[in-house]
């Protein structure tokens, strides 16, 4: 009960600031927190990256295995994105199988990569209908300070960017590993941009305190051409159609900014 009073007080404080175009941590309404991306942090993985978005910390690792294609896409490799909200990242995360929050997180990250056609999946086909490469992207949240979606999308992309596929020879239905690696065929760099709606105002890259008081959340994932490739509204509030279109415009700018900054 106490905690909900604290929330209400903070909510008012955050809302009052936002009405003046300001935020509790000093950022402007459309400013991201500091972004740090470190690639290749886990040598044992085929690709990996660690992202710091303010105090939010996410790691992603990529493993490549040989498997079967889906029956409706017999000549494409398979992409699988999984997200773990491991309990060391937040007092509110519990051990156990993925809950709706980690499933949503994984599926939003997946959608950005898949719908932007970032990976050239046809190049990951070994024998149509029989054998293809399976790309496992595992998103691992290490510290939760808000906006897990954007940080996770960046970590996943960062990991894919340094992913190497082992060379192989295919004979008589058997895949034989050969020395050397080939980079994963990556064509696009989808960037997720998330907004919180607080006091009927949109703010970019909400941190944890803002997420606690926000009415609703919207994420737009933008590809290299400035097109939208995925959207996800979350939270128990709503947006006006105008807000949605405004968010789309800002997301396009922000994505370009981030892509430049990270040289992606």
């Amino acid at each position: 009960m106490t905690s909900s009073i604290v929330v209400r007080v903070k909510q008012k404080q955050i809302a009052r600031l936002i009405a003046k175009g300001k935020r509790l941590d000093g950022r402007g309404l459309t400013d991201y927190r500091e972004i740090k991306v470190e690639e290749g942090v886990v040598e044992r993985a085929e690709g990996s990256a660690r992202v710091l978005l303010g105090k939010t910390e996410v790691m992603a690792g990529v493993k490549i295995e040989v498997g079967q294609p889906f029956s409706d896409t017999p000549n494409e490799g398979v992409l699988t994105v999984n997200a773990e909200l491991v309990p060391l990242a937040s007092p509110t995360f519990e051990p156990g199988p993925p809950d709706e929050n980690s499933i949503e997180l994984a599926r939003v990250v997946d959608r950005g990569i898949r719908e932007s056609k970032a990976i050239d999946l046809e190049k990951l086909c070994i024998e149509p209908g029989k054998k293809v490469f399976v790309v496992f992207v595992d998103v691992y949240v290490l510290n939760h300070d808000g906006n897990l979606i954007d940080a996770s999308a960046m970590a996943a992309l960062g990991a894919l960017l340094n992913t190497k596929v082992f060379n192989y020879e295919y004979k008589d239905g058997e895949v034989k590993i050969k020395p050397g690696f080939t980079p994963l065929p990556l064509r696009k760099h989808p960037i997720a941009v998330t907004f919180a709606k607080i006091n009927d105002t949109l703010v970019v890259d909400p941190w944890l305190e803002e997420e606690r008081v926000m009415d609703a959340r919207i994420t737009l994932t933008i590809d290299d051409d400035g097109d939208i490739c995925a959207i996800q509204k979350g939270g128990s509030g709503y947006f006006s159609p105008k807000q949605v279109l405004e968010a789309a415009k800002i997301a396009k700018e922000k994505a370009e900014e981030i892509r430049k900054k990270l040289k992606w």
Partner: protein
Amino acid sequence: MSQKVEKLIDKKGLRLDGRKPDELRPIKIEVGVLANADGSAYIQQGKNKILAAVYGPRELHPKHLALPDRTVLRCRYHMAPFSVQERKSPAPSRREIELSKVIREALEPSLFLEYYPRTAIDVFIEVLQADGGTRCASITAASLALADAGIPMRDLVVACAAGKVDDTIVLDLMDTEDKKGNADVPVALMPNLNAITLLQMDGNLSLEEFEKAVNLAIDGCKKIYAMQKEALRAKYVNIKEVEE
């Protein structure tokens, strides 16, 4: 091996099922179709066949999940094993878990959750046959089931998708358009409040196309909204007739 991409829009500008780009599929809505549920609704939208039932406000087990200041809205979107081409395992898939969440969040803004502290309202959705756009049709039916259960609400929530197919912005995509088209934008709306309560997208749209699609989806929502209200009215009239 190579799947020929069939034309989704013909020379006359008509779609595979003969619809114009801005045309809805045939829709049939019924309210109060299940005897046990506190509220229920059935929707047919194209070949989609979906039941929604509401139980509550009721006690919540285990009790420590109850909230002191509001009701807990719970939602389960579930597909019958026979509702799709290949039999679906009845265990909830990751897709069903995500959709249960976004549907719940699409319905929540319409309710006065603080009216019923320490209780739960359960929304159960069963997709009996799926043909693209099930999440939208589910929201349309679930909101009616909530109304049928007598839960006070700000407005009905209605949902409809728009998307892009063969470079054309179209309304209410069916299964093949959803799978082979360029983009799908499901939208849920409280029309009287002009409030978007669900918005998702996958595919590829420029900002301009996106704006067009959202507006077309909103138009579709408003048309279905009229049918929703008509279905509610039909039930009340029936009740009146029975009572008289």
